[in-house]
């Protein structure tokens, strides 16, 4: 028997996710607004590894007792397919988006014996006036800037993680599915160890692997495009008029599963069966990613 949440059927399928490399950083500032401004810049153009190279987003706003310097701050998670890409992106983004933002400081958000450079590279901006300081087993760089000092931890850690957890909301109208999507993203937002990297937490451009055009390795997934009903092979219910997808990257399998569960419940309860025809998930037949999130198990 098909499981239902608030009257919305949950399809017996699974989301297929992939191994990724991840890191976590903490940005603090004199005010939460500066921290959020830096985070917005730092996480820009980071929705998908397909073209951005990295999937990066705000994990959550941190209370001051969770930040290393006791100031307002945010935690950011970043995911990439390769360690090399993370090692390229993090210092570059830190240099252009955090170093430049008034009052900010940048700290490692995760410990690991596999480091990703931050201050280790940015220190050279100090042109010889930078100072390093080792406190405990951590090393910090202090770079003189026009508002005082930019404090930046030498490295952050890199860990194995999972990207591509997902679920799709099948809506009766665009307004309904949009509302459900917002509810899901809002429910997932405060959760630790996961991010939803797409704008507002959701994407409308669910993709399949490959394309008729050579050189494109991802293209629109016509099986989920309601406007192509009748033209292509689809299994969509006739009542489905719009679909949005929530994509979740996480540090662990359990964190993603929990986020999927919380998001699906919030989406279903926000509009019920009057707004959603169903909830399903995206996969590639289980052949590409080794992490399978079966909706029936996730919702149990």
């Amino acid at each position, binding site marked *: 028997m098909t499981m239902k949440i608030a009257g919305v059927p949950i399809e017996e399928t699974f989301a297929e996710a992939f191994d990724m490399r991840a890191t976590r950083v903490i940005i603090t500032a004199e005010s939460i607004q500066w921290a959020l401004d830096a985070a917005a810049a730092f996480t820009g153009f980071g929705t998908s590894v397909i073209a951005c190279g990295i999937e990066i987003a705000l994990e959550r706003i941190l209370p001051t007792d969770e930040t*290393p310097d006791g100031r307002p701050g945010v935690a950011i998670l970043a995911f990439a397919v390769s360690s090399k890409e993370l090692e390229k992106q993090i210092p570059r983004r830190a240099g252009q988006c955090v170093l430049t933002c008034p009052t900010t400081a940048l700290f490692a958000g995760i410990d690991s014996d596999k480091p990703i450079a931050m201050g280790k590279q940015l220190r050279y901006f100090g042109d010889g006036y930078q*100072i390093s*300081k*080792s406190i405990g087993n951590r090393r910090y760089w202090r770079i003189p800037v026009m508002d005082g000092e930019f404090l930046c931890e030498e490295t952050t850690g890199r860990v194995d993680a999972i990207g591509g957890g997902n679920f799709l909301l099948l809506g009766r109208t665009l307004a309904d599915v949009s509302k459900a999507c917002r509810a899901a993203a809002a429910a997932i937002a405060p959760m630790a160890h996961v991010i939803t990297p797409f704008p507002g937490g959701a994407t409308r451009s669910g993709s399949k692997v490959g394309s008729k055009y050579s050189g494109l390795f991802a293209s629109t997934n016509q099986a989920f495009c309601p406007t192509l009903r009748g033209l292509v092979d689809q299994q969509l219910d006739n009542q489905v008029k719009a679909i949005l997808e929530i994509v979740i990257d996480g540090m662990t399998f359990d964190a993603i599963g929990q986020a999927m569960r919380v998001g699906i419940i919030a989406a279903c309860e926000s509009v019920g069966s009057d707004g959603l025809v169903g909830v399903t998930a995206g996969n590639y037949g289980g052949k590409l990613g080794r992490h399978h999130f079966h909706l029936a198990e996730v919702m149990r």
Partner: protein
Amino acid sequence: MTGKTLTLRNDPAIDIDASPLGNSLVSMTITEVNRLPLQVIASKRVIGLSELFDVQPRDDQRIVIQGDLARFHGIGDRWAKSELVVEGRVGNRFVSRMSGGEVLLRGDAGNQAALQMRGGTLKIIGNVGDDLAGPLDGRRSGFSRGTIHVVGRIGHYAGYRMRRGILIIDGDCGQFLGCDIVAGTIITTGTVQSGCGFGMQRGTLILPQSTTVCHLRFTPRESVRLGITTIMANEIQRILPAVATALRSTIDRSHGDVSRNGKGEIWFF
């Protein structure tokens, strides 16, 4: 491998090279410890340890040495792991070349304690002589890693040529504190005599507001609020809560030693 308690029975009334009472004690049997030869300094005379100490096994892994050991020099030499507790005064060169583990001394130490220390945690509850945490004879750098915490007075030239680590003195300091330091952190809560920070290249001295430093070697004090001071405050919160509180707000700072183009700092709390 068990812990041992060495209790001094007789005051030798002569100076003894006690460097065999170092990290090798951890792996020795009681019999081997009793047979340890101790050289009398400036003499060819050798005394068996059992002539001076009563050695007993312990239920834990600690090495405990008890008694007035002021004539014993070099105790804890090359201490690298496990825990050493010394109850009583010790002579010179206490825990020289220490590289790990934990050492607690309840009593005064002579000169040249923690020479060339490069790891571990040392706490001394008592007064310490000159040259604390300095370099071994002829070496370019001294204390290079670990934590030293002294609750008591210290003599001159503490932290000379220190390279890394944190030296905390909860008490008064003699002359030339942190002289020629290359890096690292020295914190003191008491009075500091003249010459502190002379020749410092990098590193941080954290000193009371009342401390006088040479105006030819350090820039004028300037009030600043720095993120790094909060990180330091978190590190020392448990040991020096009052200093930690001060570091979380605006502090005065001087740079130096400018006479050698140094990038060191003094933070006044």
